[in-house]
């Protein structure tokens, strides 16, 4: 019966090492976060120096499993938690805001008829397709005019009104059969009623996918804070992590893990929705 499982086994033997390679950076970060400061410095102290002939020492098992770095990040130096809070403070309002605003608009684009609908949606779509650096200029001009520069709202507000949520949720709205809506109308339900009690339950996976995708994008943000926030104390952790100095090498792995944890946990718990969301956004154009 070799023929039965031979081919799947071969395929797996090819695919599993690739998966291992892709996971390597994550595993390496987690492993390093569990080493003592001294071990980290011994392994990576030579980074960024050109005059030595020593190489870094990649180690997969710590000499001594230690939570020293975590203790320092979470308890001894409050600045990390402060920056972590900065990230939360900007990302949560964007996710909540864009989800609400986009659900309303997506329902209108997906299920209601009005003049100029297609043209308007095309404009949204085009904006969504623009790389960040293109929308940065308009965002900056408006933040400047409204006096929002160097304030988190210069990042939050454009985020709330981003076009991506409208696009993604509209894809889900299109899947709702119009007969449901017609029937509800016959029974005298208003638009809000239809949206809340018919559309909303049906687009739940879409909303879950949107929340994860927005979280991914904004938890990662680097460009916006770099340009809109001059004040270093306002920066999110993502920007700060990039400026870690050699003498802070020890804690940086723990900070990295703390920073990726919310993302990874959310992804693992909502993976099904997340994947379904991405797939459905692609199935119907």
């Amino acid at each position, binding site marked *: 019966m070799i023929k039965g499982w031979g081919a799947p086994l071969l395929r797996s033997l090819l695919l599993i090492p690739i998966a291992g390679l892709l996971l390597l950076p994550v595993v390496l970060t987690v492993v390093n976060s569990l080493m003592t400061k001294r071990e980290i410095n011994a392994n990576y102290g030579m980074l960024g120096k050109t005059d030595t002939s020593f190489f870094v020492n990649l180690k997969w098992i710590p000499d001594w499993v230690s939570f020293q770095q975590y203790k320092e990040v979470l308890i001894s130096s409050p600045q990390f938690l402060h920056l972590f809070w900065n990230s939360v403070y900007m990302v949560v309002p964007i996710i909540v805001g864009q989800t609400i605003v986009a659900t309303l608009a997506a329902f209108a684009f997906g299920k209601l008829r009005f003049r100029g609908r297609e043209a308007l949606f095309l404009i949204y779509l085009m904006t969504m397709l*623009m*790389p960040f650096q293109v929308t940065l200029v308009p965002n900056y001009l408006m933040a400047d005019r409204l006096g929002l520069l160097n304030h988190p709202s210069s990042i939050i507000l454009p985020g709330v009104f981003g076009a991506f949520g409208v696009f993604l949720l509209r894809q889900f709205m299109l899947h709702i059969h119009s007969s449901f809506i017609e029937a509800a109308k016959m029974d005298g339900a208003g638009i809000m009623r239809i949206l809340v009690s018919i559309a909303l339950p049906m687009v739940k996976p879409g909303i879950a996918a949107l929340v994860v995708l927005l979280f991914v994008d904004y938890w990662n943000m680097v460009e916006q804070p770099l340009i809109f926030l001059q004040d270093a104390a306002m920066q999110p952790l993502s920007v700060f992590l990039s400026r870690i100095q050699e003498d802070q090498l020890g804690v940086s792995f723990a900070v990295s893990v703390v920073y990726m944890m919310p993302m990874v946990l959310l992804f693992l718990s909502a993976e099904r929705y997340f994947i379904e969301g991405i797939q459905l956004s692609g199935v119907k154009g």
Partner: protein
Amino acid sequence: MGAFWLLAPSLVGFSIFYLIPFGQSILGSFEDRLGGGLTFSNYKELLLSSSFQKAASNTFLFTAISVPILVAISLLLALFLNQRVFLRNWLRTAYVLPLVVPVASIVLVWQILFDWNGAINAVMQHFGLDRRDWMKSEWAGFVIILVYIWKNIGYNVILFLAGLQNIPGQYYEIADLEGAGPVRKLFGITLIYLTPTTFLVVLMSVLNSFKVFRETYLVAGPYPHDRIYMMQHYMNNMFLSLDIQKVSAAAVLMALCIMALVFILFRTERMFRSFME
């Protein structure tokens, strides 16, 4: 009337933060910095500036090289994953995970791997090869492509898997009856019916290729090696020097390029579709 009220919050905010200022920046790109009046001098200066030329050609090259590679690899993986495989769900999770890992969390690992004293060089020396300064040489482009593939492969695999699952099984059954081999089935059915998906994957890959700036910036700073100085670096640096007119002109040009590209992609896809029917 209902549509209007549902749309209003989004439309107002969208207009304030995107539409109106975008119109404003189009105007700004034609503004004369010295006096009033409209001029093309911003565009002229931009196109003549050597750092802009470098940034534009690097960005173009990066996208032109990395997107086909990424699309090909993810298609291959999706084709494998769509067949009988052990641990399939685990594998899929592993491929998608890099997408959600914050760039900043991983920067240190890239340094550990690609530093002058890094792990890759250690391996190279072990095999008697010369070490090289990966991020500060011609090889930097290669590293960035690797990072880009690492990050985006899962997203594309998911899209391709959805596309593969949408191809009706009967097509393959009919092909089996007619005695078609696996290669013929791949080119005659799979790839043809995957066209709309491929279109979307290419589009998303191009867009995501612009996001690789984050990784590049975090690893190499605002002025990286010439080989990986991208449009985004250029625009960031212009921004910080508050040259708004020039940034606006660059943004308009970039927007035009994207629109042209999207248009070409849509056109190609439509051509393929009519060819299929």
